[in-house]
């Protein structure tokens, strides 16, 4: 069912793939409803993995399991493993504190959601949660995070202005900077451009390209072209099941499964 990558032909001197996380026989329930059905999926380090599929296929539900977001809501439960490397921690283990998981795994949401605080305080929030006290250290990290999120030049003169006064695309890059400030090991993107115009979308996509040098990325997208533009690996999901996983070029050029082909050619979904 899964197509494992063999070689990456067009990229020379590629370092061997190593696992950052791996879902193993993972299922998820909203009450009695089984929203994710025994999904096994590898997430490779410093690569972009895209989750695609029609609405309601469970791709966002799967993504939100990687930082235990479902713990906030009653009547939900996980089954199986999401192992996180290098320490091989099962993120879903009840003994693992969800706070610890969320400190290691950052998340960027569908709708830009900066806090109604200053730009600076938004980016510094993760550092404050880590009880970092040194002013110069915090300032340095905030600047670096904003640079990494390609926002520094636009906001450096107004760091203490309200974050909510920024444009939608800037707000989304601010949310990315907010995650980057604390060096997450894995960054989750839940349809990060669906609320943005095409120009802002392009800038977020460029950013994802640059970020994968530093961080592993898992992205849910509604837009198949976006998956081809930004991702190295693609997983196609349908009705809570993982239909096909492979290198993005393979999934879009030579899908192994008829369902995948039907979806990516637009005959369905």
């Amino acid at each position, binding site marked *: 069912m899964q197509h494992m990558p063999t070689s990456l032909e067009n990229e020379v001197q590629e370092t061997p793939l190593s696992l950052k996380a791996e879902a193993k026989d993972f299922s998820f329930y909203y009450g009695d409803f089984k929203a994710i059905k025994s999904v096994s999926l590898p997430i490779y380090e410093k690569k972009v993995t895209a989750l695609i599929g029609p609405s309601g296929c469970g791709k966002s539900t799967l993504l939100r399991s990687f930082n235990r977001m479902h713990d906030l809501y009653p009547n939900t439960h996980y089954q199986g493993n999401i192992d996180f490397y290098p320490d091989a921690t099962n993120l879903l283990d009840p003994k693992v504190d969800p706070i610890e998981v969320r400190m290691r795994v950052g998340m960027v949401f569908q709708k830009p959601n900066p806090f109604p605080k200053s730009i600076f305080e938004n980016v510094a929030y993760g550092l404050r949660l880590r009880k970092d006290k040194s002013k110069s250290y915090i300032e340095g990290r905030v600047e670096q995070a904003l640079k990494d999120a390609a926002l520094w030049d636009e906001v450096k003169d107004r760091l203490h202005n309200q974050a*909510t006064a920024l444009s939608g695309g800037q707000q989304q890059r601010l949310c990315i900077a907010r995650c980057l400030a604390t060096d997450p090991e894995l960054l989750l993107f839940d349809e990060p451009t669906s609320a943005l115009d095409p120009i802002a979308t392009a800038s977020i996509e460029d950013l994802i390209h640059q970020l994968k040098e530093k961080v592993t990325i898992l992205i849910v997208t509604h837009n198949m072209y976006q998956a081809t533009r930004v991702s190295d690996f693609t997983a196609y999901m349908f009705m809570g099941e993982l239909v096909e996983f492979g290198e993005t070029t393979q999934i879009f050029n030579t899908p192994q499964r008829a369902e995948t082909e039907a979806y990516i050619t637009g005959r369905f979904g």
Partner: protein
Amino acid sequence: MKIEAAANLPELKAIIQKSKRFDLIFSILGFLALLLAVMTFVVLFAQMAITGWERISPEFFTNFPSRRAGSAGILSALVGSILVMLVTAFAAIPLGVGAGIYLEEYAPKNLLTDIIEINVTNLAGVPSIVYGLLALGVFVYGFGLGQSILTAGLTLALLILPIIIVATRESIRAIPQHIREAAYGMGATKWQVVKDHIVPYSLSGILTGIIIGLSRAIGETAPIITIGALTFIAFLPPSPVGAEFPWINFEWLSSGFTVMPIQMFNWTSRPDEAFQVNAAAAGFILVLLTLSMNALAIFLRYRLRKNISW
């Protein structure tokens, strides 16, 4: 190519005109209803101001009640009202805001929580005299607090607790879930989400609720009469701040007292016509107090909400 207008266009226009008539009718009716409500208040307030005006002078604020209407003042009532409000605020704010935050952010969503929620809302509708009877039984006799400022303050605190709880919950509920998720997603604990986000973002609504509650409490008469406030007081409670160590004392809490509405009630029930003027003047001051508290609430809401948007 010429685009033909729809054949039934005149007919459509007639239908639109007819439908629009209801807009007009409703806006007229609505305006009249508004006028009636506002004018009633304005007329009452103006009449009180005109009647009482001759009595309003610096002495009116610095004199104790007297047998002679001309030299009777509201000093003890005003001080009593302020001290009672102080107790009410100290008791009701932490309890009400704390309960509101707990119900909204911490309480598990189950039947028990639902029952508590419904009853908190119902408490706001309980007649205030019932609170007075409760306080008479519990605070005055049960705890032996006597007919004191402390008893009155705690009674009014109970009375406005539901107002503060409901206001706190409503303004917490206005915070979108995606803001909470952003904070939790960063690795914040529940308490960090509450203290860094929930409370700061809902502060304007909470403060408004507190002030509305206090301005309701300042005008309450029935429960205060029930617990046995004095109606004629020619002394002030011991001062809360003193010249000697430890500079603050709490003797005033157990002091007898009167409050503004009771002073008014006392004056209106006197046979001497001249006291009606005193009552009107005191009423004018009381309404002015309430109105300025509400104005403060509006101002704070505007100031604090200016920077909060999602």
